[in-house]
């Protein structure tokens, strides 16, 4: 016999069982258009600094240290991404004429000023990605500690000369308070909820720009153990579908491409990314855009 309360459903009602955002079906919304093309290709690069001392509070980030201390293997292999892989990404983006978002730990901005400068001079957008890879959030963190983490991130990035209006949580993990704390800290949009394919608003005004986790290099290559070519093929298949859907419905679509320097920036994988960019760049439907530009377009049409 289960506790009788287990068969009570206090939130069984029209709409969601929470108050964070309202239900809406994508195909029924007023059509969106982009400044160029019909499929916004939003490349989002995670710039991550993994301290060799993981704190595990509230949880250990994906990609963090794995062996007993000192884990030289993972500390250095992750840092390879910031030292080498990220620069390969910048070159590839430049060749394709693409601008992107760089979700940046404050610690990366502090430790690698040349990289930060190259991101900015390349016309890319910096969005906040916590302090470092110990800066994880979930419901066990506590509201005060979470507020402190979000404002510390904002302030440390500001000290490096960047004032992002977007936020990506580590592992897209939030508490029930995160959306309110992000608005309180002055953020305009976040990228954590993967329940949609276009920007939409939370009830508190925060915009969610969905960063599809299933299309990330981490999911397809590291978790599902597919090849870089299989990852690129999946992205092309997604683009083809979205372009056709945009044409059929007269409503713009978005393809998020979430990549990680220590994964897709390796020498034997980078060519697959470069080929993908070249193929997308050749498509008339493609609009390479940082998250902020996509949000701008959404907001402008929301006001109409």
């Amino acid at each position: 016999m289960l506790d009788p309360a287990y068969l009570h459903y206090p939130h069984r009602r029209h709409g969601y069982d929470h108050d964070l955002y309202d239900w809406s079906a994508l195909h029924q919304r007023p059509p969106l258009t982009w400044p160029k093309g019909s499929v916004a290709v939003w490349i989002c690069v995670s710039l991550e600094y993994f301290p060799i001392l993981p704190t595990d509070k509230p949880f250990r980030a994906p990609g963090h240290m794995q062996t007993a201390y000192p884990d030289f293997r993972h500390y250095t292999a992750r840092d390879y991404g910031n030292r080498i892989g990220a620069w390969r990404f910048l070159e590839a983006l430049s060749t394709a004429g693409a601008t992107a978002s760089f979700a940046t730990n404050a610690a990366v901005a502090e430790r690698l000023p040349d990289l930060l400068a190259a991101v900015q001079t390349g016309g890319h957008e910096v969005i906040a990605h916590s302090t470092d890879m110990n800066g994880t959030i979930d419901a066990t963190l506590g509201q005060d500690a979470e507020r402190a983490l979000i404002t510390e991130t904002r302030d440390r990035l500001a000290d490096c000369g960047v004032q992002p209006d977007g936020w990506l949580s580590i592992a897209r993990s939030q508490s029930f308070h995160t959306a309110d704390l992000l608005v309180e800290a002055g953020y305009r949009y976040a990228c954590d909820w993967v329940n949609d394919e276009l920007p939409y608003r939370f009830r508190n005004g925060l915009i969610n720009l969905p960063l599809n986790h299933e299309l990330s290099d981490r999911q397809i290559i590291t978790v599902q153990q597919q090849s870089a070519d299989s990852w690129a093929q999946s992205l092309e298949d997604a683009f083809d579908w979205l372009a056709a859907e945009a044409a059929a419905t007269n409503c713009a679509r978005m393809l998020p491409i979430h990549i990680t320097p220590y994964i897709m920036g390796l020498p034997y994988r980078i060519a697959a990314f470069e080929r993908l960019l070249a193929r997308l760049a050749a498509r008339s439907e493609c609009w390479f855009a940082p998250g902020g530009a996509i949000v701008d377009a959404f907001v402008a049409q929301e006001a109409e």
Partner: protein
Amino acid sequence: MIENASDPGLYDPAPARRRFTWPGGKTVAVWVAPNLEYYEIDPPPHPRRKAWTRPHPDVVGYGHRDHSNRVSHWRMADVMTRHGFPGSVSLSVALCQHHPEVVADANARGWEFFSHGIYNTRYAYDMAEEQERAIIEDSIATVREATGQTIRGWLAPALTHTPRTLDLIAEYGLDYTCDLYHDDQVQPVHTRSGRLVSIPYSLEVNDHYGFFVYNMSGRDYAETLIRQFERLAQEPGSVMCIPLHAYLIGQPHRIGPFEQALKHIAGDGRAWIATAGEIVDAWKAGQ
């Protein structure tokens, strides 16, 4: 079932395989089973199973599943409709309250509904008989009110059962269970009363298995469906199910290859494309 016996006595151990054809002389009955689900963001704990791996809210887990009800249900359903595949819906019946718009869309397409429990975050393990009766009665009443249909089948919520589940659903007059994976044909199930059969639900080609157990790409999964079909089409009297979740198969990188697999099956000529209830009825008529 027989409790505490090594063989739970669900069916005769020796396969009673017959070779026969389906209506129109087709060799394989093909049905598509979209799971239309609602997962709660903050469900109560169950003593035997956690609903989410992360502390609530599990943003990725919840958001991923919510994608079905905002975006991908219609994408998946349009592809099915385009190639002539009706759905036999495995329904979290509380979806009738939360997102009746999704249920109404499936109903308007002529799809059949069976119960997948109240929520996919409420598990049946350890339920007392009256509790299990309550979720069966709730399922029957909720689906009838929302769709006008009387459910004929059951896929246990998150595949959680009690020793009484099959006896109870048979007693309430349900015709089929999707919870037994011992055969490629419809098979009789031993129950205290009623006349329950198992219909193959082909868990091994469920899109969740394809993408999260076997880690396939969308193209690999589509090829898997075609191979499954090609073999079963050579074995007259068999059933192929394609169990789906819109938040998986309806992702933009997977839906294109999936459409090619449906096109292959629909164009082959050996498939009887039907609902679960139609397959059970045809099987019974041939007994």
